[in-house]
């Protein structure tokens, strides 16, 4: 209906600029009005039950059955409603959740879980091993539209000999099995038996066993959860959790400023620039940072020259200043990593250091590999071919694009010419990654809590759609990854994966760039948050958070 915009824009840019100035003047006149603090936010209060916590998230879950939904928004909400057999403790070690204990048989092929006694669903029905067995049958059923079946299909035989015992037997020992039982939400058989899991209304009206149950779901606007008095892990303190779906981070931040939401994830700019500049914000909002579960890397297509030469890969690794990228892209809110494991966990090798920034060494390595600037154009070449390649990444991810730009500049300095291209996600994956039609990528992988990374680094995983798309192949790494899958003893496993990380660092098939911090803002009315955050993050004890009566919002508690 409105005629095409755009023509008038350049011609009348001057007028728009004038309007902008007027607008700025208007804004400058008024500061933020701070309500006079009638209650002391920083005082200490005894824990008490009740209250409402409002948070903002960018995405809406498509459904609350995590095995079908898959996106992070779904698992975030479903994680409040459903339990798994196991979970990660604050130090990211496995512990029982529904399971009281578990035993691994002598041949490492059978795991027997013993459930805690007296477990109940939120509707009062007993939760037994039959529900666990039912969930396993669901995820391995051919009609279930889930991409996550692979781990569970390895189970040759599953049984529930009595209401408290669940036993799985694998064809051969499979060490990641335990972690896989921390990732499967147990679903109620008495409500789902005989239904088509793909279309069941249960996905929008679930009954679980965890701290919260669904109260209301207003599509496109918000989900509210209310405390489950029958929670298997004991009741939570906060009465109601409301998640508002606000796609734009700037709008989220304005809602936080206006005190309409209590918590949100911040961008580095909001955390490191806006908050320090406004002391009145820090008076009522507390900031937390916790190392995230993912790292960003520069990956090479190892099947192509020049990346099939380890000296070129190492040279590029030496030529990149990781701290500069962390400072420039994340405003310092990240850590360099030297292995694909989260620093501080047992899998992360404490002795490994990232490649230091050493352009002289980079030049030397390139010279050894036969690259010289023979035609004097500032770009290294070998046999008449200049050392140049294209870095691709997905668009809409500003940190990755900025990272690529910094990489480009540092490589330019040692005589490598690069170009950058950003591509829409679905095209990026199917047109470039799947087909192996790329030279270098800036992408991210998660810092696995389960150390098995067979799918990413084993030489057998290079087919189309598989995850070793960079084409990494090292017989010793293959052997270590295979052994790691068979070894269930955590200490022996740890040594295997430390050795694996050493080789990976030496081989440099990817340049580890950084692991960013998750930045969280929480209103100071919320008490009981651990600071500093444990390895598992501040959300780990969200059930112990509480909002003292005196600090609650009036309009909501009036409901």
């Amino acid at each position, binding site marked *: *209906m*409105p*005629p095409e*915009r755009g023509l*008038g*824009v350049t011609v*009348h840019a001057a*007028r*728009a600029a*004038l309007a902008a100035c007027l*607008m700025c003047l208007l*804004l400058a006149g*008024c*500061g933020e009005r701070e309500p006079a603090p009638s209650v002391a936010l920083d005082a200490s209060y005894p824990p008490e039950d009740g209250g409402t916590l*409002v948070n903002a998230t960018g995405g809406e879950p*498509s*459904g609350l059955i995590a095995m*079908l*939904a*898959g*996106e992070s928004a779904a698992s975030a909400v479903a994680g409040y409603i459903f339990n798994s057999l196991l979970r990660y403790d604050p130090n990211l070690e496995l512990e029982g959740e529904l399971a009281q204990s578990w035993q691994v048989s002598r041949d490492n092929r059978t795991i027997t879980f013993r459930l805690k006694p007296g477990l109940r669903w939120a509707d009062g029905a007993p939760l037994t091993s039959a529900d666990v067995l039912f969930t396993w049958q669901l995820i391995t059923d*051919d009609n279930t*539209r889930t*991409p*996550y079946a*692979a781990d569970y299909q390895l189970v040759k035989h599953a049984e529930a000999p009595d209401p408290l015992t669940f036993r799985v037997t694998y064809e051969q020992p499979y060490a990641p099995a335990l972690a896989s039982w921390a*990732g499967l939400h147990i679903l109620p058989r008495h409500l789902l038996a005989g239904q088509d899991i*793909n*279309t069941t*209304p249960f996905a929008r009206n679930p009954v679980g066993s965890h701290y919260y149950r669904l109260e209301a779901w207003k*599509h*496109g*606007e*918000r989900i509210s959860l209310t405390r489950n008095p029958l929670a298997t892990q004991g009741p939570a303190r906060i009465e109601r959790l409301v998640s*508002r*779906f*606000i*796609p734009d981070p*700037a*709008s989220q931040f*304005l*809602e936080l400023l*206006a005190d*309409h939401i209590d918590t949100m994830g911040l961008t580095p700019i909001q955390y490191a620039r806006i908050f320090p500049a406004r002391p009145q914000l820090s008076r009522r909002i507390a900031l937390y940072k916790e190392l995230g579960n993912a790292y960003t890397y520069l990956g090479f297509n190892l099947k192509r020259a020049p990346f099939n030469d380890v000296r070129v890969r190492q040279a590029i690794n030496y030529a990149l200043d990781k701290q500069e990228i962390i400072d420039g892209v994340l405003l310092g809110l990240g850590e360099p990593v030297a292995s694909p494991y989260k620093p501080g966990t047992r899998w992360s090798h404490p002795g490994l250091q990232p490649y230091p920034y050493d352009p002289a060494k980079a030049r030397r390595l390139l010279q050894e590999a036969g690259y010289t600037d023979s035609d004097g154009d500032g770009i290294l070449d070998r046999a008449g071919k200049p050392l140049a390649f294209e870095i691709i990444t997905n668009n809409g991810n500003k940190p990755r694009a900025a990272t690529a730009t910094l990489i480009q500049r540092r490589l330019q300095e040692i005589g490598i010419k690069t170009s950058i291209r950003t591509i*829409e*996600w*679905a095209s990026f*994956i*199917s*047109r470039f990654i799947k087909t192996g039609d790329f030279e270098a990528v800036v992408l991210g*992988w*998660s810092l696995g809590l389960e150390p098995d*990374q067979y*799918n*990413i680094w084993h030489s057998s995983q290079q087919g*189309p*759609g*598989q995850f070793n798309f960079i084409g990494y192949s090292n017989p010793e790494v293959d052997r270590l990854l295979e052994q790691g899958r068979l070894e269930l003893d955590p200490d022996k496993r740890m040594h295997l994966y430390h050795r694996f990380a050493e080789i990976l660092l030496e081989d440099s098939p990817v340049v580890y760039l950084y692991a960013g911090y998750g930045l969280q803002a929480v209103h100071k009315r919320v008490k009981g948050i651990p600071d500093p955050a444990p390895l598992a993050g501040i959300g780990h004890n969200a059930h112990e958070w509480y909002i003292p009566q005196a600090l609650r919002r009036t309009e909501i508690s*009036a*409901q």
Partner: protein
Amino acid sequence: MTRYLLKRLLWMVPLLVGISLVSFLVIHLAPGDITTTEAGFDPKASEESRQKLRELYNLDKPLLVQYGLWFKRMATLDFGNSFASHQRPVFWQKTDAEGNIVKGMIQEALPITLLINVASLLLILLVALPLGVMAALHQNRPPDRIITVFVFVGFAVPGFWLALLLMYWLGVVNPWLPISGLHSLGFEHMSRPAQLVDLAHHLVLPVFISALGGLAGIALYVRNGMLEVLHQDYITTARAKGLPENTVVYRHALRNALLPLITLLGLSIPGLIGGSVIAESLFAIPGMGKLFYDAVLMRDFPVVMGILTIGAALTLLGNLLADLAYAWADPRVRRGVAR
């Protein structure tokens, strides 16, 4: 007249089929499908499971077969179920055997978008008509100049930028209006009138922002139309007859000046079901723009096709309505149609 109508309506059928075929082919040209976007890059998701999903969704079949399947469903007006959103119906609600109702995605998004767009269209007409007339009557004098500047500023200001400023100014600094969303948290517990007030509060900024761009265009259209008409002989005649100036302007001139506007409004009907992705993201409004945008990014083909088909049908209907309204308003056209 009836024959003309029937003929136009019948012609729409092959047109719609053609449009849907072209849309179907074009959206499938983009690389990737739902299995690349949903868990496509999660090492826990295996390629075998993704292949299984492709088969379940018929994505492994040749394109024309897929179109045939889609067309067969459409023949019974079944828009199908979304790939991405837990199989929600694309268009209208479906009831399962146990009587559980699942609302359609378009069914939920469309009323919201319509509400905002109709409100902003009304606002545009309400403001742009007087502005345009005033500018024409005072051509090249200060009122005209001021209106033109205002109109161009409105045209040129980036909506998202102004939206953020207004959200900050009217929502944070002076907490007069809500910042985002459509309903307050306690909405369900409010009385009916209070609910209406709450909704109206939430709509002020989105409607204003979405009206801003159109305002400029329509005001200029009216101004130029009026200028053209005011120089016609029959206006001179009317003035010579000694008619009061108001009658000359509003009865003789304005009615004729509005003719091109009718075409414009007819063409704006399909626009009514489209929302701006940027505005909807900023204001956290679950409308059609975001629904379509997300569906394209997710490669959720049934949703994309559903919205495109409805959009195409509405465009054709809008053209027809514009032609009919034109005939109603202009006797010269009417005679041509009747013949």
